[in-house]
């Protein structure tokens, strides 16, 4: 069974189409990165999946309609919608009590052992914690819940690199067990590249690209071309070209070109492109060269 299935998902705010006919299918056990520029519809898509906003079109999450069956759905779904949304007045011990009181799948011992590794004490109030510590607390609470689907919307925004690294490490090591599905929407693409099993680009309310990471690695190639071989390289129809300190970097899509990987690699230094670079390449094609994309 697909964990999330959407067909013709639409949502508009006034005249703006936040979601313009989104089709997607996410299988169980995947870690999907949902990547898009600001205002692309990431948060709206996640809110629809979490039953936080009504929508048009067809959407099933774990076989349920998230808007009408939200109460049942939330027993199997968990999310961190934003950094630092824990109420400032709550004590760490109260947060543990509350979640244990209302969630049948919460493992309090697991949350406590996670917290024991941090400098957070049970008597602390959230307002006494730093932003990074609030996220650690939130993660400790959420990761101790045995949910089938975890949705993370910019879970590390505004955190320093140490906390971000820690966050994704614990996500992989302590949480992910291949039967859970995780959807992450973020700007900080490169940091999660090696965490993901799938990647999806969203732009102007549409899914413009979707690919598994295995396919990503075999299909796309980035070559820093030797200056004397540039003309030859361009003949192979790169999907994107950019200049970095005087050298041209070309990204190739190997599938439609039927070009040999070895042949391209001989033109310069070849490697798998970063998700961010591919994102720029894909969106650049969508927008035309005049319009830049800020990640």
């Amino acid at each position, binding site marked *: 069974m697909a964990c999330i299935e959407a067909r013709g998902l639409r949502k508009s705010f006034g005249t703006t189409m936040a979601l313009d006919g989104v089709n997607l299918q996410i299988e169980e056990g995947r870690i999907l990165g949902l990547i898009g520029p600001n205002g692309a519809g990431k948060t709206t898509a996640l*809110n629809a999946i979490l039953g936080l906003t009504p929508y048009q079109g067809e959407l099933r999450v774990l076989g349920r309609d998230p808007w009408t069956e939200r*109460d049942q759905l939330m027993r199997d779904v968990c999310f961190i919608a934003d950094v630092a949304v824990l109420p400032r007045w709550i004590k760490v011990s109260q947060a543990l009590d509350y979640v244990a009181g*209302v969630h049948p799948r919460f493992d309090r011992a697991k949350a406590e052992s996670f917290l024991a590794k941090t400098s957070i004490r049970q008597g602390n109030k959230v307002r006494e914690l730093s932003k990074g510590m609030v996220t650690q607390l939130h993660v400790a609470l959420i990761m101790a819940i045995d949910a089938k689907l975890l949705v993370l919307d910019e879970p590390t925004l505004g955190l320093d690199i140490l906390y971000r690294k820690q966050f994704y490490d614990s996500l992989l090591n302590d949480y992910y*067990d291949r039967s859970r599905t995780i959807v992450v929407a973020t700007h900080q693409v490169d940091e999660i590249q090696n965490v993901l099993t799938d990647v999806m680009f969203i732009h102007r309310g549409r899914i413009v690209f979707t690919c598994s990471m295995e396919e990503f690695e075999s299909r796309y190639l980035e070559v820093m071309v030797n200056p004397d071989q540039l003309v030859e390289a361009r003949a192979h129809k790169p999907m994107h070209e950019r200049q970095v300190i005087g050298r041209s970097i070309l990204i190739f899509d190997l599938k439609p070109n039927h070009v040999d990987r070895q042949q391209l690699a001989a033109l310069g230094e070849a490697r798998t492109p970063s998700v961010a670079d591919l994102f720029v390449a894909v969106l650049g094609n969508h927008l035309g060269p005049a319009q830049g994309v800020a990640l």
Partner: protein
Amino acid sequence: MNTQSNAVTSPPLESRPEAPEVISETQRLYWAVRRELWENRSIYLAPLAASAVFLLGFVVSTLHLPSRMRTSGQGGDYLREFMLQSCGFAALVLMGTMIIVAIFYCLDALHSERRDRSILFWKSLPVSDLTTVLSKALVAVVLLPLFVFAMTCALWFVMVSFSSVVLLVRGTSVATISSQLSIFQLLPPLLYHLLGIHGFWYAPVYGWLLLVSSWARRAPFLWATLPPLAIGVVEKIAFNTSYFAGMLSHVLSVGMDDRMQSKASGMSAILIPRLGVGQFLASPGLWVGLVVTAIFLAVAVRLRRSQGPI
């Protein structure tokens, strides 16, 4: 447009046992109420503070009690009247505190969680909007009056004990002192007043405040008070009638007309039931009010469902 073709076929590493533990809606409601008490400590701190301030005044006044009893020349009657006045005033102070606390609690209840964005955390847990809104209404309509009743009992007990000690030390006879115990006969009518009138009769007011709190993006106090005022003014100007204002004052004055109200005045009036319990339960006003409350709360539930942080 899908990831199906890329699905990893490896089975789950371990088949997790389905958590068999079921949490009933009552338990969730219990925790939702606990959350309210953690978040809004003014619910009990304000009445406690009011009691402390009142007690301070009472202690000073009681120190002069023996001499005033002597000059009045009618020991027992004076004492009974003094305690009736004092205890009535104590109940009134706590009641006033309760009304203020309840109004601000309700206006804040569904607004502050959107303001501080914590609604995103609460909504990530399996507690329905209905349970959340009900827990807030329950606090205002039932728990707060019950707590204020308990507080009043305790306060009266402390007051009677203190005055007894002062009078005993000054050598007043035990028979005279015990005359003040009659004050405790007023506890049942006080409970009826707090729960019946301040709880259930005023429930539509709390329902309205909760509704506004779940709807307003800012200044819920103004949104709660100005529109009813505006309706009254427009009605007066347009039709020169005041049905709306009349209805509001009917609700706020507990269905009493002026004639009946004037009969019971003075400090202890509040403690004399205006309606018998049976009469109260049979009054259509109560039941219409509760239906209106249910409608207000249902709208608040719907609003909370689609509202995000502000």
